[in-house]
């Protein structure tokens, strides 16, 4: 018996029992779909996290400044360094109570206070819901202005727009709200804070920090060169925090995801093998008289083994194809829901049918072997 005949016999048997074939393949469809879906979603999420993390870390240098210094001069000197796009000096720390200036005054306790220079808006890549960030002029004139984080603004019911004179109480003094920060990806704390101009007279209340926004990839180089810049002649009063290596963080994520994927792959494989093995076993029992007939007509044991195993393998492969397609759909849908760019390694999609083929082959071996051992006369008597 030729291999082509064996294959065509297997295909003919499968095609004449489409419902049985579909039922048998279901385990593999689900298993491979889960595998491709999880790998795809994990890859998509990994790439998303990796992209965002790399971008943030590769373009930012942070540092601390001790002792007396001129904040606005420091900002200017930092901003003029090669590779630096924006710079700012700021302080975090201190809690305050703020409230609206209106008949039905609303108050919030323990609100974070951030004091920052004018470059903070650019250096931290803030998005404003409305209004503007303060500048050096506000600080030198000692204007009583604030910028609220979106969460604080929402809590206070500050919904006005620029120039409409929204007023709040800050430490018992009325201040004008000149803007609201909608997004602050580099400093999420700001959303729950109130920002005021960094005092121009140097009356800082806490530990001063600086932040520098660089061109992509320049952060390591800038961090090496920037130690002498904020306070000339006093390099010891400046501490630069070197940007963490993004690779280590991303690698950690990758390892976690790989564990998840391996677990999913294991479950998928077991589900597929058990599904096909179970249904194939039931199927060959039902087909015992047919197998007996084939033996009576001259089939050798290896022909029966080959046919049953091949049918199981082809069923698995078909299930793998379908599973891959379903998996791709899951990834695309999952990415669309999260507004991500879907990413699925092509080799994972291509592996679906191959995995299905292997699952089917493994699952079919035992039923195939057992079927080929049937005595033909007994098989023919089976009802």
């Amino acid at each position, binding site marked *: 018996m030729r291999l082509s005949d064996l294959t065509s016999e297997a295909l003919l048997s499968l095609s004449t029992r489409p419902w049985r074939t579909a039922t048998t393949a279901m385990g593999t469809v689900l298993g491979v779909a889960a595998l491709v879906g999880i790998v795809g979603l994990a890859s998509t999420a990994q790439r998303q996290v990796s992209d965002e993390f790399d971008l943030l870390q590769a373009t930012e240098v942070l540092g601390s400044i001790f002792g007396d210094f001129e904040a606005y001069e420091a900002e200017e000197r930092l901003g003029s360094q090669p590779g630096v796009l924006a710079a700012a000096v700021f302080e975090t720390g201190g809690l305050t109570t703020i409230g609206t200036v209106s008949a039905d005054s609303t108050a919030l306790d323990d609100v974070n206070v951030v004091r920052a220079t004018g470059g903070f808006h650019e250096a931290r890549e803030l998005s404003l819901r409305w209004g503007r960030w303060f500048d050096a002029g506000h600080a030198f004139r000692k204007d009583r202005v604030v910028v609220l984080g979106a969460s604080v603004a929402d809590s206070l019911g500050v919904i006005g727009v620029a120039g409409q004179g929204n007023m709040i109480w800050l430490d018992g003094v009325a201040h004008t709200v000149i803007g609201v920060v909608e997004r602050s990806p580099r400093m999420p704390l700001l959303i729950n804070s109130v920002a005021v101009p960094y005092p121009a007279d140097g009356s800082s209340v806490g530990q001063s920090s600086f932040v520098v926004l660089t061109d992509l990839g320049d952060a390591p180089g800038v961090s090496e060169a920037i130690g002498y810049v904020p306070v000339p002649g006093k390099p010891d009063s400046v501490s630069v925090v070197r940007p963490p290596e993004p690779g280590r963080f991303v690698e950690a994520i990758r390892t976690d995801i790989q564990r998840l994927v391996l677990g999913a792959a294991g479950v998928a494989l077991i589900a597929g093998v058990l599904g096909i093995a179970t249904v194939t076993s039931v199927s060959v029992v039902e087909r015992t008289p047919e197998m007996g007939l084939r033996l009576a007509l001259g089939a*050798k044991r290896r022909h029966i083994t080959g046919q049953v195993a091949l049918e199981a393998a082809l069923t698995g492969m078909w299930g793998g194809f379908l599973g891959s397609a379903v998996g791709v759909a899951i990834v695309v849908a999952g990415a669309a829901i999260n507004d991500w760019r879907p990413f699925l390694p092509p080799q994972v999609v291509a592996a679906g049918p191959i995995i299905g083929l292997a699952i089917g082959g493994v699952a079919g071996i035992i039923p195939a072997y057992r079927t080929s051992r049937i005595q033909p006369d007994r098989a023919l008597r089976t009802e």
Partner: protein
Amino acid sequence: MIELRHLRRIYPGRPEVVALDSADLMISEGEWVSIVGPSGAGKSTLLNLIGLLDSPSSGSYLLEGVDVATLGHNRRAELRSEMFGFVFQAFHLVGSRTVVENVELGLVYAGVSRRDRRARAVEATASVGLAERVDARTPTLSGGEKQRVALARALATNARVLLCDEPTGNLDSETGAKVLAQVSKAHHRGMTVIMITHNHEVARLGDRIVHMRSGRIVEGGGS
């Protein structure tokens, strides 16, 4: 051609069943042997042993002088393909296939090329009067047609021995006569026929009648 000496077939169990007990039988090439006897006499067991569908518990079976006990599984399968054609009372057709695909099945295992086996299957189907129904699905056939398909399948391989187990048992007399006419035609072309039947008229079509009872050949075992 076929020589059985003290052939026994015992099915193990509690109690064990002696289905065939010390059977001696000789059949010459081209002979038509009818096997008759009550239910449980061992007729089907004898036929299965002759057709290499089963193995004896003891005794010897010489097929053209070769002791089949010495043959491996593969050789036995080849002999089933080359020597024997089977027609069963229950037809044993593959229900999901067409008439011609069923007739082709034996040729697949005989190693006949795809083109040749289609031609031979169509010819065999036509020879039993079913030329118009080659592409019909077997569940749509009548009992008589199914049995003729089974006969065509046996004839297509040019088997030398036709083993029939109650081929007309599920058919009315008119349809049964048509099937027997085809068997008779094959026999006249030189085919050896071994047929189990409960019908004595049918048995008399044979050159010889073998009588069985309680697993033993009680009459007609000699050539």
